[in-house]
């Protein structure tokens, strides 16, 4: 029965893609397909949750590509958590896209929804992959199905953005990730994700450190500096793409993969004997440096993109601390950042749809005209900073606890400093929106179309919900961190 539900979860987005293609000329039906499929996916994933929490690991073996190398899926807590987040937010952005794509009169909408569904299929497959080979397969697939979304507008700017996107994501994965996976196979004879890790215990610490570096930098989707430049470049895409894919699915696929590789390929025990200072240092540097860049960015989407780079590095930093508490923090941050950041991007797109404005400096007094949008933005901002009552507080709490339990004061400093920076680049926007007078020359406008506002409210409410009721994510994160250390 569980095997079937894995198949259902994988097939739902694919079937949705087929349905979207068939409903090409009937926009309402086409959008209904996305809505129904995403809602059904959330339910199907929730159906898997009790079994996974009870310690079951449903599996599905698809094809044996080479002897011993199988395209296989296994549902474990982290993957389920990630898939749930992606599926839930797919629903939210399907609602949002209706307002955005129609409101801005975008072309090629069928291709857009189709690639969106395919991207979700790849994301679920990444979340459920049972070995590094399957992960690699769908990791690359995700790059390719999102490429048409990044270059959606088809102009020179989109093409250049697409080039950067592909050069960084494909370049890092081909140069580092692929050899890392093959080396894992060479050294361990398998690439399966197993609790406690699979790499041989006798592995030289230097070799393990090099391999870890190849994984961490090979997963360009995690946008760890110096391989972060694709993320701002990808902002040429329509906002729903930036919101779901470049704040949630694609980037989270990156950090998710890193956490999964740290926990299930290396194992915390093996890495305990390996120097990971370089990794915490790189991640810490990325956290701070990206925040500083965000501080100076006037374009709202660009500011949010660098904020994403910074927040992703939190997850890497937390997993590099190698304590169960910080792993819980890393897993939770995948969730809380997703909800917070998608709300912020939704707000950016909402502003663009209603007013055509893209820059922070244009937003004076906009909160009075678009109270829902900017209210949601404020909640998202709180979550980014890590203040109650928003989701970001929970994950930051665990990350800080993890850092303190290790007496890793540098990491504590980084987290605290970046919290201040987050506040410095987000709160002025909220301040501008609500407490400054409206430009005299700006045309009057109201809120964005209803679907946009609805989606914003859903994600903002969820951001608050996770703070008050973190039950499911917390339980899954605990199952990951403490199950993995047994």
């Amino acid at each position, binding site marked *: 029965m569980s095997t079937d539900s894995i198949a259902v979860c994988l097939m739902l987005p694919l079937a949705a893609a087929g349905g979207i293609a068939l409903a090409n000329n009937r926009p309402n039906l086409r959008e209904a397909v996305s809505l129904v499929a995403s809602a059904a996916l959330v339910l199907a994933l929730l159906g898997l949750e009790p079994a996974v929490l009870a310690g079951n690991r449903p599996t599905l073996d698809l*094809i044996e*590509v*080479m002897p011993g190398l199988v395209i296989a899926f296994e549902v474990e807590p982290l993957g389920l958590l990630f898939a749930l987040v992606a599926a839930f937010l797919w629903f939210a952005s399907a609602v949002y896209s209706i307002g955005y794509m129609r409101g801005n009169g975008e072309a090629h909408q069928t291709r857009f929804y189709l690639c969106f569904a395919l991207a979700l299929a790849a994301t679920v497959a990444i979340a459920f992959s049972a070995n590094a080979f399957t992960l*690699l397969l769908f990791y690359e697939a995700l790059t390719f199905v999102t490429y048409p979304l990044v270059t959606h507008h088809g102009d020179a700017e989109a093409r250049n953005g697409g*080039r950067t996107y592909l050069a960084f994501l*494909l370049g890092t994965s081909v*140069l580092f990730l692929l*050899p890392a996976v*093959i*080396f894992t196979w060479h050294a361990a004879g398998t690439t399966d994700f197993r609790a406690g890790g699979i790499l041989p215990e006798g592995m030289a610490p230097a070799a393990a450190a090099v391999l870890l570096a190849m994984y961490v930098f090979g997963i360009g989707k995690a946008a760890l500096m110096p391989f972060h430049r694709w993320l701002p470049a990808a902002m040429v895409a329509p906002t729903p793409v930036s919101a779901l894919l470049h704040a949630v699915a694609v980037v989270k696929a990156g950090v998710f993969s890193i956490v999964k590789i740290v926990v299930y390929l290396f194992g915390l025990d093996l890495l305990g004997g390996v120097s990971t200072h370089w990794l915490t240092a790189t991640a810490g540097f990325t956290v701070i440096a990206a925040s500083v860049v965000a501080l100076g960015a006037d374009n709202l989407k660009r500011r949010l993109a660098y904020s994403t780079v910074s927040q992703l590095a939190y997850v890497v930093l937390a997993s590099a601390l190698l304590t169960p508490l910080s792993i819980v923090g890393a897993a939770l941050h995948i969730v809380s950042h997703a909800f917070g950041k998608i709300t912020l991007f939704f707000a950016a797109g909402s502003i663009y749809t209603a007013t055509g404005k893209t820059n922070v400096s244009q937003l004076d007094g906009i909160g009075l005209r678009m109270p829902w949008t900017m209210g949601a933005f404020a909640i998202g901002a709180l979550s980014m900073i890590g203040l109650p009552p928003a989701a970001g507080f929970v994950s930051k709490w665990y990350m800080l606890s993890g850092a303190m339990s290790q007496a890793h004061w540098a990491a504590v400093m980084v987290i605290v400093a970046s919290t201040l920076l987050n506040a410095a680049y987000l709160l002025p926007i909220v301040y501008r929106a609500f407490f400054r007078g409206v430009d005299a020359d700006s045309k009057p406008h109201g809120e964005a179309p209803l679907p946009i506002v609805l989606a914003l409210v859903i994600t903002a409410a969820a951001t608050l919900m996770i703070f008050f009721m973190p039950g499911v994510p917390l339980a899954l994160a605990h199952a990951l961190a403490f199950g993995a250390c047994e």
Partner: protein
Amino acid sequence: MTLSAHFPVLQVVVPLVSAPLAVLARRATAAYAIVMFASWIAFGLAIALTMQVRSEGVVSYPIGNWPPPWGIEYRIDALSSFVLLLVSAVAAVVLPYCRRSIEHEVPREQHYLFYSMFALCLAGLLGIAATGDAFNAFVFIEISALASYVLIALGRDRKALVASYQYLILGTIGATFFVIGIGMLYLMTGTLNLADMSERLAATSDLRPVLTAAAFITVGMSLKLALFPLHQWLPNAYTYAPSAVSAFIAATGTKVSIYVLMRFYFSVFGAGLVFELAVGEVLLVLSLAAMFIASAIAVVQSDFKKLLAYSSVAQVGYITLGLSLESVSGLTASIVHLVNHGMTKAGLFMLVGGAVLVTGGSGMDRLAGLRRTMPLTSFGIVLGGLGLIGIPGTAGFISKWQLVLAAMERQEWWLVFAIVASSLLAVAYVWRFVEVAYFREPSNPADRRREAPATMLVPAVMVIAASIYFGLDSSLTLGGAATAADFLLGTSR
């Protein structure tokens, strides 16, 4: 003897006989039917032989019942059956494609000659793989080469004549080197049977002429297989040949030459002797040069067929690189890439052939906005291109995985890096097509959507689909290659 005992010779004779029959038939349709029928029989025979080799081991067939080493022996083992399968499968799928394709490129009164030459070329290539006799191999090399000179010269562009002439000169030099090498071996051993030659060489104490022979054969075959920098003939030949010929020759011609090289290295000279000659080091350097330089040249081509041709030179580099690693896994990588690349490149050339037919040329300008006019073809080319890069899920990935693994086994970390780095150049040249086809507007905006005729599109799509299938289930390709590599090195001295 039952009929099945004659399969090894029928494998070659059936297409060989179909060539004069096609000439006698004169009528284009009849000639086409005869050659296609023959090629499908050849494909069936290759399957039957592969199964026979699997169950019974090496199949030996004495021509005219003269026992080897006196008579000519046809000898089918794990490697040759693998190559027979590749060549005959490509012919079987390219022939249906030929019909509509050459109607646009070759004058109708020459069609029967085209099919006859195609049959000869096929017979020659199959003969090279089937024979166990050195001189017989030379004869088949010449048969296939002469036929392919004619086939290339049939291209619509007048440059095809120059390309064919270039190939003729260099191909003849290659064949001459090869036959000189064989002559020396004959001098030393007094036999032309490969197996017998191998045994007698073991007893030879004077190595110098043998090493010279190895050098001559290496150079001769390197010309034929377009090992960088002996590839000068290839780009023009592939570019100006008729589309169907580009597809067939790109997938089979160089691959069979690599087969000959492997056969002589491992079944005649023996791995020990060849690699003592530093052949491995030379091949390694030239392969790397091919992978990087030819790929870089491919990136700047303004004609898509020429881009694919330079990509072929680069991909041959991967094959010879595996060979140079002197290990079972390296050889496995080479052999599996013979098939994986042959398949992918055949599919690509077939799709481009369709685009040439519709748009009138393979220049990048002609292909601008191809996604509008030929969406299926464009998408197929992208999938094939991903195979050239070696993206997971394509046949090219299987080769790359195996090759990287072979380099890791030798602890050559820089080589691992070189292999993956060179595939980034493949990204660059494949993406040139993507940007031209998907981001530029058609040169003539009035162009309506018009795919190639179904008889061309369907075989092409089948080949591309096969390249994806074998990327997901490699038991036939990788399994076959591993068996062949095991066998070759296992029986090699």
